[in-house]
């Protein structure tokens, strides 16, 4: 209070001195009030006029002020004390009494600076669609990768994590799917350097994904902006999926600050274990399936002695259990995250240094992610006109993971569900004494049913990914004149990824068509990228009415990627020699790949603001990409080299500044926005546009053969979009609302057209598909309660996406994926599930006879078989045969509606917040249930199979058990599709910040989190959220990756 009093006297003094001096010049007198969002007057707000040499004045107790100006149009700057944010208000001289609402310090304000391409600008002046993410809570949440923070908070942005494996990343689509075969992921730019797509890295382990963002410690991030509109055109051929700008460690001031944070907690399986048959029930089912095979009963005990073993038989102990194998794969695990940073400097140079260590185990046993990060950033004012920045980031991480359900031999989920409950993980050891004392010490061998021992999968099978990345950049910012500046950035990205996998012999089913007993795999991937970006920018204001910002530059990027794969098979069966040389020479496999791709872009941008009311933005870029064919159409040529032209324009009308609304003081800002643009996607394959050859062996000699059917006319995929939206904020941004309608017509999408076999290649890449996305985005925020020290905030965002294929080669393309089919057909959603319509089970023989259906091999559907709808036949009429003519679009793995809700309550320094995410209208192909309810082999199944059809007249939805499923009851159909909608509480966070200096700490914050405490869903699997890979075709297919964990965490952050 003492300080405030002095401050007020000081300001008052200045006012008196300067006020007297300027009195003679006054032409306009404006009076008004400054209020907060509660409509309460704010006292002591400093008020000044921008660009005019007058002293500030302060508001009185009633928040009133009177100010004089010598100009008709001017900016008034309101500088409140720490509880509120500074605000600039443009005055046009048409009013004499104004009311200004100030924004609470913890709310988003129009005066906040937003990270945009090439510059920071005030949020209120951003024309293109840019969304920022509040990084304030990054320190407090137990996430390993910054992409996880995108979930539930991005209007129109759907982030789906690959799995529950820590650091595994996910798929982020901004405003819907934009491509079939090319990347749908936005371009990610870290400190100006574009990161590579994770999809360039392949894996020898099914379900293995690499997440480039996993190398960034969330605590290092100081700002994130997501560009989805017109400004993406500046990234031309890489902008159609949106752009994410990430700014890391930023030395803020010259005071030395040291921060340390530590958090630790425990993970547990968030969902439920699937209810499986017990040993008794399993035996019954296995017998029934065996009997249905038609093979004689008397052979069963010979083939499967374990299933028929009697207590008096040798080895009975191995088959006498009733074991829940899921307990072998899941475990409660722990995580630790320590982070240290130091920042400081002086007027010449500033620096920031951070180191962090994360160790996060998965809920699958022996999985996890650990990472060491170090980052250094320095900024040096070399001259008054030149500032140089440099940063270096070295990260080393290791990920231990497991295979997906697509490899049944090594999948934890498939093996644990399919494994007979009669068995046990251990057997007697080689030591005869073990048998005497009845001690089970050795991991049990694979059983007679051919299912690997999950214990061996979790303990002996190993898949490991080691990553070392070095990012460095050098940036120069020079002011050539007062208005003209130059920026230059050179950055290098070096990434080395090494994957090792060992598929053991002990306890595991044979691999590769039962030919291989163990195998060792190694894969190394190395990327070297260099990036350079140079631009000039010119900023000028004219009479406070016209504001112009022009920018022009060029950037280029060169990438070199190498990948080597070596696989050794049939090593020593004792599993002790895992090196590659130990494999059988006949079965060794080696392979590799070298790819180079380059990108050159010249770009320009103009921003113009008139009277703070009309905002314009124009972007253009000309892009050269090595992925594009030399004969591509829809390009312009320079020296016969094809360039893609991409451009956009945006206009924003700040309607709240129009005279008829100026008196509505509570209306902080109301804008109507219009954007239009054309952007591109050059991720059409690095080699699809060129003929090349590959080596092959022919008898005793080697030769070269054409490697692919190249399309030298292959061009960019193009996104032609327009956006119409409006945004309103009220009462000092206490309430905000925005709505956008976004329409993107994607043309020239890459598809692989089927070729006639005599041409020697199966597919041909071509730009031959179009698609449209109609996106409705709704975003609302409100501080519903702001009483004294108590605040209650509610944020809600919602997006509806209508996706439709408008053109495709041949009218439709059906693509077979493991276990299911997808179709891309005109008029339907992209990558729609395509299969039979499952309508139950034939209850009686009479009913089956009446239906008189055959499968495609001519086998009749009988009582107890699935009832598929006979839709059509070769003549367009139902023909009694269930085959491809009867397949139909069954839904899509992409949701119709999604969004999130954020609720925050704070009282003084104690805050409680929670984030919810929901997804609606999404179908999931439950591959795990498909494997778990097929009843076509001797795998254990879920207890739902207890209601399998078993007698004439049995009314049920579960077909009969039948070895090999000859009639096709388990064919891909709506039976396996489930409602994947869910509402998930992403986290509940509580934090308390010490109000004052605490012992020798400047500040101390204690926080706790529960991540993923609740999920409400009808989905019958472990977890409705997954994304098997970056491949768009498998979105919605649950192949059994690690489910998400529930996490409880406590942490502390200390500032020195």
């Amino acid at each position, binding site marked *: 209070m003492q300080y405030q009093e002095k401050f007020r006297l000081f300001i008052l003094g200045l006012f008196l001195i300067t006020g007297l001096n300027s009195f003679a010049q006054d032409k306009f007198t404006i009076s008004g009030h400054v209020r907060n969002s509660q409509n309460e007057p704010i006292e002591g707000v400093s008020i000044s006029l921008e660009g005019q040499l007058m002293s500030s004045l302060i508001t009185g107790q009633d928040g009133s002020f009177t100010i004089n100006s010598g100009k008709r149009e001017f900016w008034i700057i309101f500088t409140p004390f720490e509880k509120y944010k500074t605000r600039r208000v443009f005055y046009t001289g048409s009013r004499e009494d104004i009311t200004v609402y100030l924004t609470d310090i913890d709310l988003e304000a129009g005066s906040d600076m937003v990270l945009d391409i090439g510059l920071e600008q005030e949020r209120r002046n951003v024309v293109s669609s840019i969304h920022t993410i509040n990084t304030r809570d990054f320190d407090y949440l137990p996430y390993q990768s910054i992409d996880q923070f995108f979930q539930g908070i991005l209007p129109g942005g759907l982030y789906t994590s690959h799995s529950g494996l820590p650091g595994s990343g996910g798929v982020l689509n901004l405003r819907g799917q934009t491509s079939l075969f090319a990347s749908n992921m936005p371009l990610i730019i870290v400190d100006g350097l574009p990161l590579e797509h994770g999809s360039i890295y392949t894996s020898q382990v099914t379900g293995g994904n690499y997440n480039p963002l996993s190398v960034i410690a969330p605590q290092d991030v100081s700002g994130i902006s997501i560009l989805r509109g017109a400004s993406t055109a500046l990234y031309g051929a890489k902008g159609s999926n949106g752009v994410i700008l990430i700014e890391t460690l930023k030395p803020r001031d010259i005071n030395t600050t040291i921060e340390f944070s530590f958090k630790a907690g425990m993970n547990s399986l968030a969902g439920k274990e699937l209810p499986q048959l017990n040993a008794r029930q399993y035996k019954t089912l296995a017998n029934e399936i065996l009997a249905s095979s038609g093979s004689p009963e008397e052979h069963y005990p010979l083939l499967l002695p374990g299933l028929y073993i009697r207590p008096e038989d040798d080895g009975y102990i191995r088959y006498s259990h009733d074991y829940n194998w899921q307990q072998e794969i899941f475990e409660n695990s722990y995580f630790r995250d320590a982070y240290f940073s130091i920042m400081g400097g002086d007027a010449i140079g500033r620096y920031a240094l951070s180191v962090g260590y994360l160790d996060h185990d998965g809920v699958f046993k022996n999985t996890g992610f650990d990472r060491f990060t170090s980052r250094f950033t320095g900024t040096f004012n070399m001259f008054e006109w030149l500032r140089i920045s440099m940063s270096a980031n070295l990260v080393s991480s290791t990920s231990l993971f497991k295979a997906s359900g697509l490899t049944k031999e090594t999948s934890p989920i498939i093996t644990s569900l399919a494994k007979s409950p009669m068995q046990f993980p251990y057997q007697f050891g080689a030591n005869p004494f073990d048998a005497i004392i009845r001690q089970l010490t050795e991991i049990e061998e694979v059983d007679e049913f051919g299912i690997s021992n999950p214990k061996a999968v979790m303990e002996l099978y190993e898949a490991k990914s080691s990553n070392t990345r070095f990012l460095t950049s050098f940036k120069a910012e020079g002011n050539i004149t007062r208005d003209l500046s130059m920026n230059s950035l050179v950055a290098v990205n070096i990434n080395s990824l090494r994957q090792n996998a060992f598929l053991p012999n002990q306890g595991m089913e044979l691999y590769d068509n039962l030919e291989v007993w163990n195998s060792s795999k190694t894969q190394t991937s190395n990327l070297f990228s260099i990036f350079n970006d140079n631009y000039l920018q010119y900023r000028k204001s004219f009479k406070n009415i016209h504001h112009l910002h022009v920018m022009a530059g060029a950037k280029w990027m060169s990438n070199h990627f190498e990948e080597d794969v070596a696989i050794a098979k049939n090593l020593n069966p004792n599993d002790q020699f895992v090196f590659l040389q130990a494999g059988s020479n006949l079965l060794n496999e080696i392979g590799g790949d070298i790819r180079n791709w380059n990108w050159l872009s010249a770009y320009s941008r103009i921003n113009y603001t008139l009277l703070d009311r009309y905002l314009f933005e124009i972007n253009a870029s000309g892009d050269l990409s090595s992925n594009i064919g030399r004969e591509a159409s829809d390009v312009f040529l320079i020296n016969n080299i094809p360039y893609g032209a991409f451009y956009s324009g945006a206009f924003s009308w700040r309607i709240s500044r129009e005279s008829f609304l100026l008196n509505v003081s509570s209306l902080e800002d109301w804008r109507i926005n219009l954007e239009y643009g054309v952007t591109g996607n050059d991720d059409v394959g690095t080699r699809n546009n060129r003929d090349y050859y590959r080596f092959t062996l022919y008898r005793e000699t080697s030769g070269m053969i054409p490697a692919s059917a190249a399309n030298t006319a292959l061009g960019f995929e193009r996104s032609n979009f327009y956006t119409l939206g409006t945004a309103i904020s009220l009462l000092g941004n206490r309430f905000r609302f925005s709505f956008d309608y976004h329409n993107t017509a994607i043309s020239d999408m890459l598809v692989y057209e089927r070729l006639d076999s005599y041409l020697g290649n199966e597919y041909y890449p071509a730009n031959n598909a179009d698609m449209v996305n109609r996106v409705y985005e709704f975003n609302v925020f409100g501080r519903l309660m702001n009483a004294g020290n108590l605040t209650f905030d509610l944020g809600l965002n919602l997006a509806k996406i209508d996706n439709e294929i408008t053109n495709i080669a041949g009218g439709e393309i059906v693509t077979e994926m493991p276990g299911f089919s997808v179709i891309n057909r005109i008029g339907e959603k992209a990558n729609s599930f395509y299969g039979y319509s499952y309508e139950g089970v034939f209850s009686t023989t009479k009913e089956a006879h009446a239906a008189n259906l055959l499968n495609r091999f001519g086998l009749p559907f009988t009582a107890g078989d699935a009832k598929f709808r006979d839709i059509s036949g070769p003549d367009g009429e139902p023909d009694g045969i269930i085959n491809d003519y009867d397949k139909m679009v069954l839904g899509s793995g992409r949701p119709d509606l999604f969004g999130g809700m954020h609720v925050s309550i704070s009282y003084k320094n104690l805050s409680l917040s929670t984030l919810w995410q929901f997804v609606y209208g999404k179908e999931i192909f439950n591959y795990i249930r498909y494997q778990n309810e097929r009843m076509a082999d001797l795998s254990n199944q879920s207890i*739902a199979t207890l209601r399998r059809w*078993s007698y004439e007249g049995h009314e049920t939805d579960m077909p009969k058990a039948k070895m090999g499923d000859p009639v096709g009851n388990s064919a891909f159909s709506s039976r396996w599709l489930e409602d994947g909608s869910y509402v998930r509480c992403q986290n509940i966070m509580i934090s308390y910040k010490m109000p004052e200096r605490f012992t020798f700490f400047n500040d101390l914050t204690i926080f706790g989190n529960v991540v993923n405490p609740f999920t409400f*869903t009808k989905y019958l699997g472990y977890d409705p959220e997954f994304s098997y890979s970056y491949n768009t075709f498998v979105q919605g297919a649950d192949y059994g990756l690690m489910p998400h964990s529930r996490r409880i965490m406590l942490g502390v952050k200390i500032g020195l």
Partner: protein
Amino acid sequence: MLHKYSILVSIGILIITACQDDWNSYYYRDPGENIERTVWEVISDNPDYSRFVELIRENQLESIFTTDRTLTVFVPTNEAFADFVPDSMDIKILLQYHIIETLLNIPDVQKFRIIETSSKKFALLERLNDTFTIDGEEITYFSPLCKDGRYYELKKALYPRPNLYEFVSVNSNIIKRYIDQFERIVLDYDKSIPLYFDNDGNTVYDSVYTKINLFDQNFFPVNTEFRRTMATIVIFDEEQYHTALDEMAGKLGGAFTDHHDIPESWQFDVLLPRVIEDGIFEGALQYSDFTRGRLRNIAGDSVNVDFLNIDKNFRLVASNGIIFKYNNYEVPEAMYLLERKVQGEHLVRPVGAGTYGWKQGVVTSGGAGRAPTLSFSAAADNDSLIQLDFGSRFTDQFNLEFYIPQVFPRRYRLEWKTNSRPSGIFEVYVNDVVVGQIDLFTLRNARQSVTGALFVPDRGLNRVDFLVDHITEYGDVKIGIKYIGQGTSTNNGFAIDYFSLIPFPL
């Protein structure tokens, strides 16, 4: 305010319970009324099956249901036991015949299926339109799934079918005895424990013996039931067999008056193997299969079956095969009335490269240790004949004797085909009675047979025959030649292309 919170909490609870309901209603929905109970528990509680349950208990078979095996039970109702006559069959086997130790989903049966019961006997499941039968008895109720299997209801009790062995045992005593003679007691190596080596190095076992039947192993397991080794047997009944032997005896004449006179050893050694080979075929055949020509018998040979002699109206389904019956059975005359020929080359065995010795059973004396040789001649039967050279002016003794087995008593002529070089004078005798003498050298010319025909020399070979009318008993006939001395030629010895006993008109 309280009201508002109550509504919010209620909505939350509703959402949570709704999602939980989806999970539960899918995984735990209506698994069936019996899913937590065993088949035994379910049928024990049903008064309609009390008789079956009672019989199971009485015969101490309840333990079948108390193991953790999976079962399919065909439960006869109490009415089914009203006219139930266990007959001579073991009641336990009969009850076990209603139990299958696996889980059968009978509607899966498209046409028919043979299933192995707990009694180790096979039953036939058949589908007739939309009804299912087991051994012809209709299944009247299909139970829902129980914890350890399911049961099906029958209105009649099942009687297990006999297997082929059991059938022929009743219908043909001679074949039963024929099969039984293959029984052997052998050491069961799996169950015997090796103790030590004797002085000769042989392993001495703590022996466990087991009984096997070589007929089962070598031909068809008529006594053991296997699903895929079914056979079809065409058989005669006892009466038909005796009639056939009576006819045979009539044809043999002499002391043979009826079937009692036909030696059993001949039946076992000659007739019954032929009956088996001509009458047992792989697989379950229909009558129409016999009309399609030759069939493969269980020995793997191609057999031509006289389908007109098979009773098309008689077809019995045994548990491991099909039984047909002959209309009439006749013993082929060829089995007892055709010539019995012994080739010369069958009397010797190779003892070295190009050298031969006499086979066991061929008795020689004299000849100064000379060894027979095998010669090839285009004029010989099978292109070969044996020869023994005594050398020039051989003065020593030489006798050769061998047997023609299983010869019925009647009048024969003994035909000897030989070479005229080397030669000598030989006395030929049958069962130690001299039937003639020959100087082999004279065979270079035509020679008259006892039948009046003329034997003409052919590239050095010729035949000589002798009347034999002193074979009065069935058995092996001894043929002998004795060197008497040097004949017309000085180069002595003899050759045998063959000896043949040929029935001669009485």
